[in-house]
Structure formats: structure tokens, C-alpha cells
């Protein structure tokens, strides 16, 4: 299938938030929210439009300034990009709506709330723009640029809370992320030096052998692992995610970490030849497995809800890295594992965002997020607890969520490959997730001890409650609708291309 030319919606999904971000910064206080919502609408529409085009006509390319790829910079959208774009658009839009209320006028009378609101929108819109750029980039340097921009915006958002711990977490995050970026950049430099191109597609065609490839892979992998907070590089994530304002945590956990994972996934399968990757495929898998276990154990011990959710992210990210090993055996299992990885990433994005938003709502109403005292608020926030319930089901990987479907595919692939230990880890992870999430869920069925103790003021704004529920339910629906999603992912996927090539001559 020919890649049709120049789709303006591609650039629109990147430009719109960027422009809105600048405008919000310039125009200040009140306009931010409005601009944010407009940008969300545009991004959502653009993502839908791009997906539609890809669905109809196959992968789309947009050469910036009409300069063709090798020297010029190109944006490219295939099934995977579209899925990620949709994820960012969907989660981003819902979180934006949540933020309207969270940072709105009726927010707790915090001195810093105004400055938080002023800074939140420009930073978030920049982050969004960077994220979309990352998903659409067709060359590895561009990816670096987007990644760096993403990091900087994310660090800014973490620091937004302004407390001492938040600043410390942000700084830690910054240092870790920069180290990761640098390693990645080194890898990019190696590749460019060896093959003289940055375009992923051309690199994929040309870089078939050579001493630079393994080294580049290592650097890229390590850098991106650090940025994705894979065990044991997760040290920066829980404080950063746990101390940021709730919408920020949601964005970081749902979207930002997926950015670096996306790069690794794309390069691993699109760029590096199989004979190079399969040598070290077990490294991310072992670390992933360790992450699942360790993250879950930490989540079991967490005393605050947001820390629990953050550690849960550490655990859940572990699953994503199993894919590299699962796909190492080629054939149908590889395809299934790859699909499972993407599906899992999407499911996690929805569920985790929902969980963080719900945690934010609880914090908003109770003034704290101590797990021990959760029963006190459970009667006030039935919808929120319902959302937590549904999101938990998704995180546990139980049906009918997309995470269940993904786990099913992972398990089938693992067992077909004979990697029983991976299957055991996947199962164990589900049980551990159930164990730590049970601590939260049980609150909904426990009689409140001291309902007077909660800090706030009536009920939470309805928007806060229902946005979380929307995200949670969409992770449920995604499971039922995974068939079309898998079809979308097939467009331009590494598993599609060989047949295209075979068909071309």
C-alpha cells in the first residue's frame, strides 16, 4: 500500500497544544483552562482524523516543510502511532476536564493554588505537544528532541506542587531523566555515525550488521529503561508521581512513561535486526519480572494511596518489558506478544489515570490519602470508589478489561514459547495487584470509623468523580473492543511489513 502524502492533521496534533501552551503562558491566569479545553478538542479531533486516514489508506507520512525524508524531518503515522496518539488524546482530554475542576476556583484555599493553575496549563500543553510529536516522529533524533521536551515539561509539572518533597522529587526526576536522555543520545550518535541517517525506516533497511548496532542498542535500551523507570531504575518514579498534584500524576503515570517505552518498542522491532536484539532480550524481561514483584511488594507496604498507585505503576511497567523476550521467538507468538504489549500499555494508561484521578478526588475531599482512613470517605464518594473498583479490576488483569486480554495473549505466547517462568510472573503479578488493590477496595465495604474527621466540605465536584469513572469504564470497554484495535495496530506493524515486501515485487 502506498503511503499517501502530507496529512495536515499530523502536524495539527502537535502544533495545537504547543500554540495553546504559548498562548496560555502569555495570556495568563484565566485563559489557560479555556485554551486547554480548545486544544484538547483539537487534539482529539486530529487524532481521530489521523487514525481515520491510517485506517483507510495505510501509514501516513508528513515531511516537514515538504522536504523529503533523508535530509528533511518527517512525521509518520502507522497503526501503533495512532493507537498511542488516541491514548494521549483520550487520557489528555479527560484529565484536562478533570483539571478544570481540580485547579478551579472552588479549589481548597491554598495560597499557591493560583500559581499552580497559572503554570499547570502551559506546562501540560507543552508536554502534550511533545508527547504527540514523540509518537509521530519518524527519525531517531526527532524522538530525542521530543523526549527531552517531554521530560522538561514533566519535571516542571512535578515541581508544581511547590512543597519541599515535591521539589526534591522533581530534581531527582530531572537528574535521572537527563542521564537517560544522554545515554539515548549517545546511542543515536553511534547509529548516525555508522549509517549516516536518522530515519527509522531507512535505518531499519540499512542497519543489518555492524559493530555499532549492539552498542547503540545497549545505550538506547539503558537510557530508555531509566526513563521508563524499569526496576531497578524506578527510584525516581514513586516520589515524583506520588507527590505531584493528582492530574499531573495521572498524566505522568499514564502517558509520560509510555513515551519512552514507545521509543524502545519501535526501535527494538523496527530498527534493530532480530539477531541483535534477541541476544539481550532476556535482560529487559528479567528486570520486568523483578519490577512486577518488587513494585507490588512496595505497593503492599505503602501507607498512602498515591504512593500505592505509584508503586503499582512500577509493577505494571514491568509487564511491558516482558514483551521483548516474549516476541523473541518469532512467528505468531511474537506478533501476539507485541500486540499484547501495546494493548497492555493502553489499558494501563486508562486504568492508572483513572486511579490517580480518583486518588486526587479523595485527597480533595478528605485532605489526606491515608489508606487506613479511607473508609471514612467511602460513603461520600461512591462514584469515585466505583471508579477505583473498575480501574483495579483492570490493573489486576481481570476480565473483561483490555489488560485481561493482553495478559491472556502474553500468557499464551509465553507458554507456547516454553517460557513458563514468564507466565508464572504474569500470574503472580496479577495476584499481587489484587492483594495491594484490595487494601483500597475493602474501604468501600467497611463501615466508616470517624466520618467527621475528613477535612472537607460536602462533596467533591461531580466532574472530578465522573472523569475518573469515564477513564475506568473505557479500560473496560477497550477489552471488549480489542479486535478493531488489534486490526489498527496491524497497519504498518513490523509483522505486516514482510508480507508487504513480499507482495511488492
Amino acid at each position, binding site marked *: 500500500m502506498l503511503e499517501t502524502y502530507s496529512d495536515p492533521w499530523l502536524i495539527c496534533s502537535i502544533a495545537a497544544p504547543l500554540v495553546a501552551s504559548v498562548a496560555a503562558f502569555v495570556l495568563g491566569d484565566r485563559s489557560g483552562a479555556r485554551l486547554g479545553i480548545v486544544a484538547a478538542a483539537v487534539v482529539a479531533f486530529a487524532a481521530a482524523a489521523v487514525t481515520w486516514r491510517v485506517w483507510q489508506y495505510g501509514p501516513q507520512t508528513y515531511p516537514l516543510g515538504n522536504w523529503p525524508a533523508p535530509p528533511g524531518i518527517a512525521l509518520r503515522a502507522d497503526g501503533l502511532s495512532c493507537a498511542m496518539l488516541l491514548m494521549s488524546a483520550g487520557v489528555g482530554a479527560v484529565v484536562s476536564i478533570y483539571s478544570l475542576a481540580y485547579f478551579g476556583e472552588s479549589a481548597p484555599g491554598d495560597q499557591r493554588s493560583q500559581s499552580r493553575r497559572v503554570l499547570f496549563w502551559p506546562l501540560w500543553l507543552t508536554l502534550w505537544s511533545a508527547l504527540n510529536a514523540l509518537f509521530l516522529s519518524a527519525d531517531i533524533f526527532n524522538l530525542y528532541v521530543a523526549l527531552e521536551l517531554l521530560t522538561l515539561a514533566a519535571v516542571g509539572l512535578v515541581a508544581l506542587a511547590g512543597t519541599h518533597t515535591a521539589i526534591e522529587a522533581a530534581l531527582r526526576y530531572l537528574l*535521572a531523566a537527563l542521564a537517560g536522555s544522554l545515554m539515548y543520545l549517545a546511542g543515536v550518535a553511534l547509529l548516525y555515525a555508522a549509517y549516516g541517517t536518522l530515519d527509522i525506516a531507512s535505518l531499519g533497511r540499512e542497519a543489518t550488521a555492524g559493530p555499532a548496532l*549492539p*552498542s547503540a*542498542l*545497549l545505550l538506547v*535500551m*539503558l537510557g530508555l529503561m*531509566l526513563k521508563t523507570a524499569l526496576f*531497578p*531504575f*524506578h*527510584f525516581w518514579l514513586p516520589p515524583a508521581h506520588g507527590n505531584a498534584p493528582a492530574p499531573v500524576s495521572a498524566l505522568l503515570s499514564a502517558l509520560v512513561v509510555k513515551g519512552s517505552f514507545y521509543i524502545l518498542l519501535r526501535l527494538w522491532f523496527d530498527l534493530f535486526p532480530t*539477531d*541483535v536484539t534477541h*541476544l*539481550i532480550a532476556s*535482560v529487559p524481561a528479567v528486570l520486568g519480572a523483578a519490577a512486577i514483584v518488587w513494585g507490588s*511488594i*512496595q505497593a503492599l*507496604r505503602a501507607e498512602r494511596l498515591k504512593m500505592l498507585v505509584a508503586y503499582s505503576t512500577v509493577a505494571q511497567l514491568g509487564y511491558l518489558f516482558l514483551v521483548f523476550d516474549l516476541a523473541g521467538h518469532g512467528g*505468531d507468538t511474537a506478533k*501476539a506478544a507485541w*500486540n499484547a504489549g501495546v*494493548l497492555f500499555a493502553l489499558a494501563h494508561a486508562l486504568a492508572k489515570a483513572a486511579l490517580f484521578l480518583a486518588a486526587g478526588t479523595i485527597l480533595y475531599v478528605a485532605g489526606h490519602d491515608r489508606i487506613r482512613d479511607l473508609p471514612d470517605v467511602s460513603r461520600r464518594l461512591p462514584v469515585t470508589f*466505583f471508579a477505583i473498583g473498575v480501574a483495579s*479490576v483492570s490493573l*489486576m488483569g*481481570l*476480565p*473483561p478489561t483490555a489488560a*485481561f*486480554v493482553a*495478559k*491472556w*495473549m502474553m*500468557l*499464551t*505466547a509465553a*507458554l*507456547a514459547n516454553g517460557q513458563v517462568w514468564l*507466565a*508464572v510472573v504474569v*500470574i*503472580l503479578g*496479577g*495476584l499481587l495487584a*489484587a492483594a495491594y488493590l*484490595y487494601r483500597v477496595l*475493602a474501604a468501600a*465495604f*467497611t*463501615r466508616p470509623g470517624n466520618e467527621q474527621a475528613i477535612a472537607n466540605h460536602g462533596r467533591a465536584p461531580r466532574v472530578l468523580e465522573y472523569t475518573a469513572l469515564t477513564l475506568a469504564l473505557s479500560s473496560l470497554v477497550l*477489552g*471488549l473492543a*480489542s*479486535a478493531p484495535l*488489534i486490526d489498527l495496530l496491524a497497519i504498518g506493524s513490523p509483522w505486516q511489513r514482510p508480507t508487504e515486501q513480499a507482495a511488492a515485487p
Partner: protein
Amino acid sequence: MIWDDFIPLLTLLTSLVPAVLIFLLPEGRRGVRTTLNMAGAVLKLAFIALMLWGTFHEHRFESRFPVVPGVDFLLRADALAMFFVTLSGVLWFVTTIYAIAYLEGSPNRNRFFGFFSLCVSATVGIALAGNLFTFVMFYELLTLSTYPLVVHRETDVSLRAGRVYLAYTLAGGAVLLFAATWLQSLVPSAEFDQGVSVAGLGIEHYGALRVIFVLLIAGLGVKAALVPLHGWLPLAMVAPAPVSALLHAVAVVKAGAFGIVRVVYDVYGIDFAHALALTTPLAIWASITIVYGSVRALFQDDLKRRLAFSTVSQVSFIALGVAVFGPSSTVGGVVHLVHQGLMKITLFFCAGNLAETLGIHKITEMHGVARRMPWTMAAFTVGALGMMGVPPVVGFISKWYLAAGAIEASQFWVLIVLATSSALNAAYFLPVLYVAWFRAPRGKWLLEKPRRSIETSWGLLLPTLTTAALAVSMGLLAGVPFSPLQWALLIVDRVYGRAVVDWGFAPGSAAWTFDSSLVVLTLVAPLVAVSLLLTHRFRAAALWFASLAALPAVVLAFCGQPGVAVDLPWVLLRMHLGLDMTGQVFLIFTALLWLLAGVYARGYLANDPQAPRFFRFFLLTMVGNLGLVLSRDMASFYLFFAIMSFSSYGLIVHSGDGKALRAGRVYMRLVVFGEIALFVGMSLATVARGSLLFDQGVAQLASAGTLNAIVGLCFVGFGIKAGLLPLHAWLPLAHPAAPTPASAVLSGAMIEAGLLGWLRFLPFGQVSLPGWAEIFLIVGLATAFYGAIVGVTQSNAKVVLAYSSISQMGLLALGVGAGLMAPAAWPVIAPAVLVYALQHGLNKGCLFLSIGVAPTATAASWRCRLVKAGIVLPALALAGTPLTIGAVSKSELKYALSVLPAHWNFAFDVLLPLATVGTSLLMARFLYLVWPDSDRAAERVTSAVLVSWLALLVSSIAAVWLIPASAGVGAPASLLMATVTWDNVWPLCLGGAIACSAWRMGRAKRTLNFPAIPAGDVLVVWQQGSRSINAWVRLLIRQPRRLGWTLPKKPRALFWRARLDRLIQDTDTALDGWPWVGVVAWILLVTCLLLSRAG
């Protein structure tokens, strides 16, 4: 039609959509919520009916949606699926009504009903799932949707129960998921295809397949509560009653059991599973669970916990059925899915009713509760008896097929499991019934709601009665199309292609005649009378009707053509009724006795307020006794035998005093023991014969390898009823305890049922069984003498008569023994036995009735003399005075026994006259005890008493003319004349002389000091033994806890937990530093470099 593809999905949605809508409703919208619930339930039933009809006609309903490549969401309505769907659909409907009433006014009802509907959706999904993926999906969904129901009360206890429940079921689900995906990685489609694709795998996969099987069963076993994975179930009892009912009867445990059926039959295929040697271990596992659950249930005082452990035990019958490699056992296992559901939901509804209405949670609080809530306890009784496997409740059908299947597969140990379980079931259910029905209330109830016109609210009572009625009718009418049994047969026959033998099939069905209607009327009339007695409205009329309910039977006995046959193919396992020569003789004295005892009872109990209760039991017992005489197949015989045995408990304990209750207890234990022996014997005999019918396959039975076991079990089973030594212990307690008319039928008619059982079940005239014959002869003789000797020492007239019955049955056992010894002589022996039975029945009945009449004849008037003569006559007859039927029957018996080998003949020449001496002594003792005391004023009795006694007296005098000509014993007059021989006279004279001298000695105050043998003689020894066994059991079970053998868990666990916590914390701190990250990054870099270089 395109709609067909959506009907399974729509069935699912009928509960899923209400669930979602209910979540969205505000708490107060009760009306809307109820409407939603009921509309969903009704709609679901409509869809189910449609699919049932379609599936029956081999129409295919299938909803299929691809989820990811190679994995489909597949709902398919096959026969097995429909079985489970129908069960859950119907019970959901009933439980919803119940739940609405139960939760009236409690908080969080939206949450409850939302999850309740969700739970049903999950169950329906499990049922309809067409592949493992869909199955696992709904299986997990079920876990999630039931958790909120378990913790609904929100107490600490329920939260703990919920935690344990989740831990168990999620872990089980995880194991299942693992196994399912493993299987899918081997067999890409993993659809339920009767094992075609799995069996197609190469031999190199067999190891993996075995492991997968074990994992699948373990995963499912958590929900199916296989020991030791059952721990969650008793704890989950804290949930509200409707939840327990649904959880236990349908949803959770059944989902597990259903899954096991699916795995064995649809994933692996039974043949392949058998080839992999997986079925026997599963059967053993299930058996262990069955026994363990029952034993644990014994020791629970909390009613719901007892029921929970009973569930643990009962659900495993399903697994046992599919694991035993026989088609019939599969039918038994599969049909138990529904049967257990019906019975258990009834029991839980009842427990809920008791808790909700009276605040009763414990069995020790249930004293006399049946007086306050008779309908609830009636339903409970149905459920409990069904669990024990008493026909006609559905449990019998399951157990019957399980047993038959086990025999087919030559897995005889399964019979032991079944028998043990039945005994244990009786041991933990019967005391509950006893406490509730036959003990007096202890005072005020714990919680007394304002009394309404009925015992509790309609919403609670109606569902209970509905399920109880279903449990009875589905068993009684098991042959009706679309009954659970027929559907299970269809599944096994059609889907799995395994031919199930139709045991009840009779070639050439009988034509319907007037006599056929009479046969049916014989059984229906008493049942109608029973139902009339349930209301107070037409009490007097109902009592009269009840007393005459045996009239059709009498008409049938005297006017019915021998050979009349009625086939009722839709009753039980195809019921065949009819009348042959044996049956007719039995029917003559049985029907006469019941009719006259009924009339007598009407007069005898004229002032008893409990008369309706007495008549209810009386009539049920009558149905049983008449029915077993009319039965032409073993299942019907067993049914009526059980009805008779269990109902007569009510007659024995009628007076309610301590003696009667003790007699009832002893009786009940022996009855249960006998029923179990009979059940096993009957299943063995059926499989050996290849038919349930008495007149089919006798030759096969005679040559069967299991013949010895069959005869042995019948010897014990019927020996209890007939009162053979040492199984007679109940008789001298029970017969005197019952009211006089009841004693008459007990001693005259019911006791002969044991004899009839032998005549029907044993292969007479076909094969010589010298070993068993000797046993019958020796035991018979011993019983005859023992009864006489112990009986003479008694000082209660009724006890004397009871011992006389024992003694007489011993003599009858001699006839049976002779028949077994000399098959060729059976045509001679059979009439002798029949005449003896007739004689004994009528005379013994008459003697019992005369006990009530005797106190009227104190005066010296001619009328009183006539009455005295009427008392003496049957006693003389029984003793064998010449010119009476007694002498005729003795001669006949003696003649029959002459076919025996020489050494026996010699023995009988001496012993039989001595036995007659014994009988005459017993009769003398009886007359002495019952003789009207002229010092006393005459008692008045009603004319009903007198008339019925006189009628029976006349018929016993004229008994010789009652023997049907077809019996072939000769002309009455010549028979009577032939009895005037010296052989018949001298034993009587001797007996009379001994009696006279004893009487004279008594008059002279030189009393002989008889050792006082308590009634029930050997019982003393038994009770001592059982007491010490009890003590041992208690010691074994209770002591470990008391001695502290179970380790104090807490401190040690806490210690390790703290250590672990510390370790994790230290690791975390270590991980949380830059140096560490740098080191790790460096190490990784180097490792990876090395790795890539190495490659």
C-alpha cells in the same frame, strides 16, 4: 435466522443491563428496582425457554465475536449449557423474589441487587461459554461480583470472610488462567469440542496435558470447594441468606463443578481423560471431599455452617459422577448439578426464613420450631431427605445413577463412598428434623416479628415452597420430558454419545383397564386424604375420609384380576405397578389391616387433638405399604419402602413421651442403615439384571458375580424390617410405643414388607445358595426361639406381641432359607410362605386391636364373654390350634421345609414343635396380661373400634377362604380338616400345661424370678458400644484443639512478618541511591556488551 446469533448474548444481557441500571438508580427507588429485577428475570426465562426448545430440536444458538486474533468471545447454547442456564435462570427468578422480601428495609440495596444481577450474568456466561477464554472471563467476573455480596453486612466477620473468599478464588482463578492459556498455546482454538482437538495432540504433549488437567481442576476446585480448597465456603456463610442460597446452590460452587464437567467432557473428552489416567484420581479426590465435608458438617451447630459443609460434600458428587468412567454415573453427576441446586437452595431459604422470622441461627435454638413454622420446616424436611437420597426427592435420582454407573464401571468402592455419605447425611440432617418437629419449644423465640396470617412473609415463604416442590416433583416425575433427568440423559446420550441403559424399560406396555384405575386409586386416595388433612377446614370429613382411604385397596385385593399392570413411565425411573399372585395375597391382608386399623384409629383417637398429625403419618405409611405390594420394579419398591419406613417414625413417636422418642431414635438409626444397605443392594441387582423390573433378568441375576453381595445386603436391609436377630432391637420398643392401631399395622402388615422384599429381590427358583440358605435357616431358628423366650418374660402385652412377631418372622425366614436351598421346590415353598404371612398378618393385627377392646369386657354378661372369646380366638389361631388358619399355615410350612437336606429335616422334627410350644406360651402370656380385670369398671370404646375389631376378627377366622385359589394350596375345608393331627395338638397341650402351672404358681405367690430382660434386649449392648465409639470420636476430633496441638500461630507469624518487612525496607533504601543505580547501570552495560559480543 439472524436473531439466533444474538439470543445467547441477549440472555446474558437480561441480567447485565438491569445490573448496570440498578447501579445508576438512587437508593430510594424501590419500585423501579424491583421492576427492573423482575423484568430481567422474566425476560431471561423467556429466552431460556426459547433456547431449550431450540436445543432440543438440535437448533444451534451461537454468538461469536473475535476479541483478538485466534481468541473469540463465544457463547453457545449446547445441551449442557442449557442445563446450567435453566437452573440459574429459574433460581435467579425465585431468589430475587426471596431477596426482595429478605432485605426489606436494609441499607445498600442498590449495591446488593446490582451485584446480584451481575453475579447471575456471570453464571449465565459461564454456562454459555463456548471456549476456555470465555469461560475464564466469566469465571473471574463471578469472583468479583460475589465479593460485594459476601461482605454485604460490612461487619468485621464478613470483611474477613470476604478477604478469605477473594484470596481463595483469585488464586484459583489465577491457576485456571495459567492452565487455560497453556492449553490454548497447545490447542489454538480451545473450544469445547468433546476433546477432539486435545486428543489430537501427539504423545509428546501428554505430560503437559496431565499437568494442565491437574491445574484446571485445582483452579476450578477452589470454587467447587474440593478439600482442601474449601476453606472459604463456611466463612462465606456470613452473607445474607439469599446470597448463601444462590452462592451455594447455583452460582459459585456450581460454576466450579460445572467447569469440572466441562473440562472432563468438553475439553479433554472422557475417553481421553481416562486414557491419560486422570479420572480415577479425580474420583478419589471427590470422594475424600464428600466424606470430609459430611464429617465436618456433623460437628456444626450453626445451621448455615452445617449446610455449608454439606455443600462441600454434595457438590463433589458432580465431580465424582463425571470422573467415574460409566455413562450412568455421568448422568448422575450431571443431573446433580440441578438436583443439588434445588435441594440446597431450599435448605438455605429455610435457614434464612428461620433467621429472619425468629432469629434462629443455631440448631440448638430450633426446638419445636416446626410448630411455629410448619411450612418452612416441611420444605426443609424435603431438602434434608433429598440430600440423604430418600425417594422421591431428586437426590435419590442422582445417587441412583451414580451408584449404577459405579457398578457399570466396576468401581465398587464408590458405593462405599455413597453409602457413607448417605449415613453421614442422615446423621447430620435427621437430628435437625427431630429437634424441629418432635421437641417442645423452649420458650420465647429470640426475635418474634408481629404475627401475620402466615408464618412469615409471602416473599420468603413462596420461593421456599416453590423450590421444595420442584425438588420433589422433579424427582417424582423424573420421566417427564424436559425434566432434569431426561435432559441429563439427552446430554450424555446425544452430545457425548454414550449409551445409557434404560433400566426401567418394559417391552410392551400394559393396556389401561378398570383395574388399572383401581391400582392408581389405591395410591392416590390416601394422598388426597393427606392433602385434605393439611387444612383445618374440613377436618371431620377429612378424618373420616382418611380412615377409609384403604377402601380402594381392599376392593382391588378382592376384585382385581391377578396380572393387572400399570405402567407410569414418567414417574421416577419409570414406575411399573401391578398385581401378581404374591402381590395379591399380600394385598389382601395388608389392605384389610390398613382399612380396619384406619377405622379403629378414628375411634381410638377420637379425643386426641393430634389426630390429624397421626393420620397424616398413618396415610403416608399406608401409601408406602400398599405401594410396595403393588410395585413391579425395584425403584418403585424402594420408593414405597422408604416412604413407609420414614413415615412410620411419626406413628412410633406419636405420644411424644420419652419412651416413644427413644424407640423412634433406635428405629430411625436402623431404618437409615437398612435403607442404605437396600440402596446398594438394589443398584447391584439392577445392574446385574440389566433391568429394574422384578420379572426381568432373573437368570442374569442368578449368575451375576455380585450375587453374594446382593443377597447379603438384602438379608440385612429387609432383615431389619422383619426383625431378624440381632437386627430386631427396634421392634419391641417401637411397636408398643405406637398407638394401638398403628401397632397393629406395624406388626401385622409392615413387618411382612421385609418378607416381601426377600421374595421380590432374591432369585428364587433359579439358583441354589446353600451358604445363604444356612444363614437364613440358622438365624430364623434363633430368632424364633429367642423371640419366644424373651417375650415370655415381658410384662407389657404389646411388647409380648412384638416379640411374638419377631418369633413368627423367624419361622418365615425358614421358608426363605428353604427356597434358597432348594430352588426346584420353590413352587411348593412359595404358597406356604404366603399363607403363613397372611395368617400372621391378620391374627397379629387382630390381637393388637383386641388390646384396645379388652378393657370393655369386665362384666360377666354374654356380650363380654363373646368379646373374651374374640380375644382368645386369634391367639389360638396364631399358636396353631387345629382347625384354624394357624394350623394350616404351620402344616404348609412344615411340608415346605421337608425339601431340605436330611440333617435339617431331623432338626426340624424336634425344633418346629418346640417353636409352637414357644408360641403358645407367648399367647398364654399375652392373654394373661390382657385379660379383662373383673374388679375394674368397664371402659367405653366407640363403635368404630368395636366394629373394626370385629371385622378383622371375622376375616382372620375366615382367613382360609381368603387365600386366592391361584395360590394352589387346596380347598379350604379339606385344608382345615387336615390339621387335626396329634402332631398339632401335643405342643399346644404342653404349652398350655406349662402356662397353667406358671399361672398357678403366680396365684400361690410363689413367683418365678425371671431375669428382667428390658425390651429391646440387645440394644443395651449396642448402646454401650456406640457410647464408647462416640467418646472416641469426640476425643479424636476435639482433643487436638484442647491439648493445644495446633500451634499458636500469631507470635511466630508476626515475628517473621517483621523480619520480612525490615528486609524489604533495607533493600528499598539500598535501591534508592545514586551509587547503586550507577553500579547497576554499569554492570548491565558490561553484561549486555559481553552478551552481544558472545553472540
